[in-house]
């Protein structure tokens, strides 16, 4: 019986951890995520191709962090990073692709 119980402990631990609320983001998590997003947006700026949606999402991340909602702040930061990366991809690929539209 003891052995059975010992064997079940790890399984129980996994089940209990699964039932626990998701890991709550900290201020440090936000700062890391925000800095990454901000760096990507800066790169888009150097390419002269920032998006208004990236700016708005970065602002939303900051606002959520100020309100102490770090889960939301991290999620918005990650979204802003994805948007910034998309704008960088656009600017890079358009360096050649614009020619496809040209009237000749």
């Amino acid at each position: 019986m003891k052995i059975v119980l010992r064997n079940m402990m790890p399984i129980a631990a996994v089940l209990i951890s699964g039932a626990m609320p998701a890991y709550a983001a900290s201020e440090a998590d936000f700062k890391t995520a925000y800095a990454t997003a901000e760096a990507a947006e800066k790169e888009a700026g150097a390419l002269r191709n920032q998006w208004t949606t990236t700016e708005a999402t970065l602002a939303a991340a900051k606002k959520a962090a100020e309100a102490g909602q770090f889960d939301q702040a991290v999620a918005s930061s990650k979204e802003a990073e994805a948007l910034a990366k998309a704008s960088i991809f656009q600017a890079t690929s358009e360096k050649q692709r614009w020619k496809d539209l040209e009237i000749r």
Partner: protein
Amino acid sequence: MSTHPAISLVSAALALAAVVLAAPPAIAADTPNPVVEAKAFQQFFTHKFPKLKPEDFVNGPYSMNEDLHRQWEEKEQFPPYEFALETGKEMFATPFKNGKTYGDCFANKGIGIRQNYPYFDATEGKVVTLELALNRCREANGEPPFSYVKDEMASLTAYMAFTSRGKPFDIKIPDDPRALEAYQKGKQYFYTRRGQLNFSCATCHVQEPGERIRAEILAPALGILNAMPIYRSEWSGMGTISRRFTTCNSQIRGVPLGPQDEEYRDLEYYLSYVSNGLPISGPGARP
């Protein structure tokens, strides 16, 4: 009969060199030819809209839709830009504190010269627009610059455009590689997709002129700057070329550049050049 391997190798190398030399250099394909390109640009629109005369294109969406055209004719009885025009005329004639006027900064005292702007300034190696020249004139005479997007700047350019009505755009690209580069950069900006909506200027104004985007009818790129500045009902006021460019960028969810940044000046240079020969019709009114 057998050939010496060394001779075969040399022959092959010579044949390869001949092929390579005969092919045009890759750079040539990218070298812009503004004269040929402007002709192709204008033909694209005249073929797309065979019923329109070339000079009709300067009327933007009003040339694309009969109902709008009738509305516009009635609107022109009491044009909404009239107040700005009167203000601009008065401002233009009023001396600065030092006694000089705007007219002192321009050829022909600033009258009937809109069609020559923008121009490439060989001294500074940059494109100079009328808006930029007006603010430089102010600063040279000890006055603070105006906002580039509306109000006073729109009034001044409205008056200057009015004195040039009917004169064909006459934009020059001097024999200077920097001028050609500015033209090319303007063209690149025009065709480059940007913003989250992934639109270029050409997406609306080359691919879809005459079509609706929400409630608006899209203007053709040909002649699109000839009517500037404009009173825009959407803005409930006047706007300059700078305003038009920055709001276009915002509408496609792109962060606009600063008014009169180099990209916008180059864009204006390109768009004006490809409309050479079409008459100035500004100030204009748009829905």
